[in-house]
Every structure is written in structure tokens, then in C-alpha cells.
């Protein structure tokens, strides 16, 4: 961070022969040896005590104990070599780095675990081209699949996106461009709604759609429940993006005599396009994984249903819910649940990758194709 060397203030004054240069972030053999020694020593000690001497069991407990022992050992070894300040500095550094890495491993582990266990079901092609209509608890994995759930997820998320994007972006425009007294409560409610208990959205649609209007469970009801969960997410993310649009662009457009409608339509929205797309894709990624809202209102079926307006329609999360939880009676069902988890994780990963790829650009930054088109137009003009 501070790269400048300290210069003596008065060059003429007599100086100590060579001022030792302060090295930030140095790696010394002692430092490395202490870290490695602490880690290995803790591993050995915990292994002996945990697995051999004391009646403990469980991988999780093992690593927790390892972490605590490691920090303690390291602190003890550091205290032998350095002064108190240095010890605190080093121990906190090691504790945060080791803790952060352990956490990331656990948090990433859930995705890897699902991918690994899902693989046994996913490697059969039938998994992607069949529904569960002809598969029972004892059917081998070559019969039956998630086709009906993939269709259901695709249709429901498409409907939910169609509904929530216009309303969400409009609400975000209201917050960012119109403002006023009403904007504050709307913004607070939107932020609070992004963490709405997911089951409440399903309950609301159940109360409105099925109990009050007397309609039947269907893919449309599930899409509406997803709409309720996605709307605040899209609104909030879009508002953040719209705020990044430079005010000078707006002022330039106003100075040319544009109306606000024109400014928003021709300046703000195109400038924020990549960010808005990211917001929408992230909202979709959230919506696709929601189980609780669709659980109550979409109904359960084993068969392919292309029509979201009529009859029960299963989606991927609901499929997992059924086969890995409610009906988890055989290993084949559980494997199918994990298989659907595999597909779901992949879909979310792809959506996320798209969002990162789009969101890497600052507002107004043009893609290569846009720049080429602009250049062509300039040449023509």
C-alpha cells in the first residue's frame, strides 16, 4: 500500500550509515516454518486425541478441533519468537485466512457434493428425455427422468420473468428517476421484501388464487408465486444499476430539450442495459431455485404437462423436494433427487456466468460489436 521509501528530511545532517528499509509483507523462513509447523502439529495432535484417545467422531468436529488447536499452537510458537504486537498481528492473519478458506471450502462443498451425487442419475440420457410417468420407486435409473420438471421450470420462470421485469424495472425507474416523498417507503419495503420468507409468497397466491378466486393448482399459480418473490429482487438490483448512470448524461439530454420520457427511454435505459440484464438474470437465478412458493400452489404430477394454465405442473426444485424428501423411500428416488439437483445447480451456474459476463461492463461501456457499428455509422455520416 505504502510504497514510497522514507527519505531523510535534511540530506546534509549526519545520518546513521544505512537506514534499514522497512519491508512490508515479508516472507521469512521462520514465518513459513511456524505456519506449517502449527498446521501439521495440530493435525497430528488432533488426529491422535480425536480419533484414538477420546471417544469423538465426525468429520466436522475433527476440523473444528483442528482449527482451534492450530490457532492455539501457532499462537504459542509465535509468542516464543516475536513481541506481543507482532504475535497478535500474525495470529489474527493466520486465523482469518485459515477460517476464510475453511468456510469457502464448506460453502463450495455443498455445490460439489450435489454435482457428485447427482452424477449417477444424470449420466443416463433418459434422465433428460423422459418424465416419471412410467417409473416407480424400484425402477432403475435408465427409466424415468426430469423432462416434465425441466419443462415446468422453464415455463414458470418465463412467465414470472415476463410479469416481474416490466413492473420491477418501472418501480426501479420510479425510485431512481422520479423520486419524491413516496420513494423512501417504497425503497424500504422493497429491501425488506427481498428477504421475504419464501413460503409466504406461496401462501399469498394460495389465498388469492385458489381460496378466493377458486382456481385450481397450476403452473400459472406457481409462476405468480415466483413473480412475488422475484419482483423485489429485480427492483432492488435495477435501482442500484440505474443510480450508476452518470448524471451528466441525463443533464446533457435535458439541455438538448428532451422530455423526461425521452431521457429515460433514449439515455438512461440504453446506458444501463447491461446492468439491467444482469439484474434480471440474477432475479431469474433466484426464482429458479425457489421451492417453497411453488410447493403450495403448483400441485404434484409425474406426467408431462406443457400447459401452465391447467393441471398440476412440477418444477425442478419441487421434483427434488418430492424424491429426496417426501418420497425418499428408495436409493433410486434419492439419486433422482440429486440428479435434479445437478441440473438445477448447472442452470443457476450458467445464469450466474451470464450475469457476470454482462455485468463486467460499466454503464455506457460498449461491446465490441456496438463500437464497430458506431464506427461504421460515423464513416457513413
Amino acid at each position: 500500500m505504502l510504497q514510497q521509501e522514507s527519505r531523510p528530511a535534511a540530506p546534509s545532517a549526519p545520518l546513521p550509515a544505512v537506514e534499514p528499509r522497512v519491508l512490508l509483507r515479508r516472507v521469512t523462513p521462520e514465518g513459513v516454518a511456524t505456519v506449517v509447523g502449527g498446521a501439521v502439529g495440530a493435525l497430528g495432535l488432533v488426529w491422535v486425541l480425536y480419533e484414538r484417545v477420546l471417544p469423538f467422531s465426525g468429520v466436522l468436529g475433527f476440523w473444528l478441533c483442528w482449527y482451534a488447536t492450530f490457532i492455539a499452537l501457532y499462537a504459542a510458537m509465535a509468542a516464543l519468537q516475536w513481541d506481543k504486537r507482532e504475535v497478535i498481528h500474525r495470529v489474527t492473519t493466520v486465523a482469518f485466512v485459515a477460517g476464510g478458506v475453511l468456510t469457502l471450502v464448506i460453502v463450495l462443498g455443498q455445490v460439489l457434493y450435489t454435482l457428485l451425487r447427482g452424477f449417477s442419475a444424470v449420466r443416463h440420457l433418459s434422465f433428460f428425455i423422459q418424465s416419471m410417468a412410467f417409473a416407480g420407486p424400484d425402477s432403475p435409473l435408465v427409466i424415468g427422468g426430469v423432462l416434465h420438471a425441466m419443462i415446468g421450470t422453464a415455463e414458470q420462470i418465463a412467465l414470472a420473468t415476463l410479469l416481474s421485469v416490466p413492473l420491477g424495472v418501472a418501480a426501479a425507474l420510479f425510485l431512481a428517476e422520479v423520486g419524491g416523498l413516496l420513494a423512501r417507503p417504497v425503497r424500504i419495503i422493497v429491501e425488506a421484501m427481498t428477504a421475504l420468507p419464501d413460503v409466504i409468497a406461496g401462501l399469498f397466491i394460495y389465498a388469492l388464487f385458489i381460496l378466493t378466486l377458486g382456481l385450481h393448482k397450476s403452473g400459472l399459480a406457481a409462476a405468480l408465486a415466483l413473480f412475488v418473490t422475484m419482483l423485489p429482487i429485480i427492483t432492488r438490483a435495477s435501482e442500484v444499476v440505474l443510480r450508476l448512470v452518470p448524471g451528466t448524461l441525463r443533464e446533457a439530454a435535458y439541455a438538448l430539450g428532451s422530455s423526461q420520457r425521452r431521457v429515460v427511454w433514449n439515455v438512461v435505459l440504453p446506458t444501463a442495459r447491461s446492468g439491467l440484464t444482469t439484474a434480471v438474470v440474477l432475479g431469474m437465478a433466484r426464482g429458479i431455485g425457489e421451492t417453497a412458493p411453488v410447493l403450495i400452489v403448483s400441485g404434484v404430477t409425474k406426467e408431462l404437462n406443457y400447459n401452465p394454465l391447467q393441471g398440476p405442473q412440477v418444477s425442478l426444485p419441487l421434483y427434488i423436494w418430492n424424491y429426496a424428501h417426501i418420497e425418499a423411500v428408495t436409493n433410486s428416488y434419492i439419486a433422482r433427487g440429486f440428479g435434479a439437483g445437478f441440473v438445477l445447480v448447472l442452470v443457476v451456474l450458467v445464469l450466474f456466468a451470464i450475469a457476470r459476463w454482462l455485468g463486467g461492463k460499466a454503464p455506457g461501456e460498449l461491446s465490441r460489436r456496438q463500437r464497430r457499428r458506431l464506427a461504421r455509422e460515423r464513416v457513413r455520416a
Partner: protein
Amino acid sequence: MAAADAPALTDDDRPRTIVVRVSPGDRIFRGVLRGAGIAVLVMTAGILVFLALQSVPAFKAVGLRFFTTSTWFISTNQFGIAAILPLAVLIALIALIIAIPVGLATALFISEYAPPRLRRTLIAMIDLMAATPSIIVALFGLYFLMPRILGVEAWLAHHLGFIPVFGFTKSNFSGNYVGSTFVAGVVVSVLVIPIITSLSRQVFSQAPQGEREAAYALGSTRWGMIRTVVLPYGRAGMIGASMLGLGRALGETVAVSFILTPIFTLNFHVLEAGGNSPTFMIASHILEAGSKEISALMAAGMALFVMTLLVNTVAAIIINRSRSGATASAD
């Protein structure tokens, strides 16, 4: 003060009054946008209204005893959330006790300790994890974590059993540890950690560069800098992130449903099998429920909704304030 000395103003000198004329088109445009904003408010209100309307029969049947009854017998009108809601709070508390230190430490690791080249990747990773479907966490929790937590639970019950919360009244058989509030709390914490990490990391990275360098210039070590600059600046953000995590933990449905074995008595022995939460009740009962039970579930849902809305709103206000810099004073 200058009015007396000033020469008489001519018409040309007077500042022109600026009239902002909003054209009819713009007025419609702004109206439409405002309508969208109002629609969001209406939707939130609509959720409350519909849940309230649907829960009227339940309140007609049991009245305010709904909040003091801990059993769930629909036909004899003895049902309430006196056990269910506190059990859900218990799960959320366990989740937060794990997730807050771990999440904050991970956030500090990413924003302060990780090499700058890795930082972007780590941020993307944590954001991805915050968007992982809860059903994936539930799968991981039920099939991977739960069998591996039982050992920790048995250890806690054995050696820390004198602490009332860890007390264990059943026989020491591993089946008695399955599906406990503790396991559910741990699984929910896996869900909450990325949320807390992601939000507090944003706040930490906003700690001003000037103050950081000032701390270093005064001879501070990195930990000293974090303690005196980053943490004080991020305090409001940390509180807000933790509260959003609390809201998320209270409202979690799928993960707790996968894990819990349902009970209807208030059991503070978190290691013992059995727990409950309104979300779990709704998810597991509503498909087979009669009209009175549906109404009871709606009432439970409304209680949960009001509670999380309060928690989340307070969290949103705290986070907003920290963003605007109103409380960003390092004391």
C-alpha cells in the same frame, strides 16, 4: 443588507423566475412509474390483507389463545403458535451464533487478507453461494452434514450437558440426536453465511482508503488497522447484514423441513430430536389441511411475515443509514 445601497433594479436585472413545465406526456410517464412503485406497496399490503382475511376463521375459533397455545389439535380447537414460533426463533439464533462470526471473518478475509488478484474470484464465489437455491443446501444438510454433526452433538451433550441448553434427557442413542433444532440451525447457518459475508464485505470495502493509510502511517499492523478503521466504519453494515441474515433464517422453509422431526412442545434442549417452525408447518401440512387448519396455517404465516418484515425493515434502515455515511464516524 445590500438592498439599500443597490441601484434601482430595472426589469432586466431581476432574476427570471424559472417555471418547470412538465409536459402532459411526462406527467403520464411519471404517473406510470409512480404507479409501479405504488404497485409494490400494494402487493406487500395485499399479502398482509389476504393472510389476515384467511386467518379470521382461526382467530374466531380460538381467539387470542392462538398465541398462547402450544398444541396443534385442529378438531378440538386447541391450536396455537406458542411453541412453534419460539422454536423457529431458536433455530434462527443457533444459525446466527454460527453464521455471524464465521460470515464476518470470511468477509474480512476476502476484503482485507486475500491477495488482490484472487479477490474478484472470491467475491464472485460468495455472491454465487448467496444465490444458491436453498433446496441444494437442504440436500447437502440432510445427506452430508447431518450424519457428520451427530458426533459433535453427542460430544456437546456429554461434556457440556451441565449447560441447560445442551442438556439431554433421552438415552444416548444416535437416533435421539437426529432432526434436532441444533442440526437445523447448523444447516440454516450454511445458508446464512454467504448472505452475511457478501453484505458485510461490501461495507468493509467501503472503509475509506485515507484512514486506512493513516492507520498504517501511525505504525499500525494490519489487525490494528482493521480494528480501528474497518470495523468501526462497518459497524452499522455488520448489524444490518446480521439482521437480514436473521430474517432469512426465520423464513427458511426447505432446509428446516428436510431436517426437522416435528414436535409441538417448547423444548429448549436443542440437541434433542425434534423442532418446529411456522414455515415447516405450512410446507408439511397445507396440502392435506382442512379449511380450519388452512386458516390456522395462514395465521401462523402472518405472524411469521409480520415478524420478518419488522426485522428486515429495521435491517434495511440500518444498512441505508450506513451507506449514506450518517453514522460513519470512527470513534
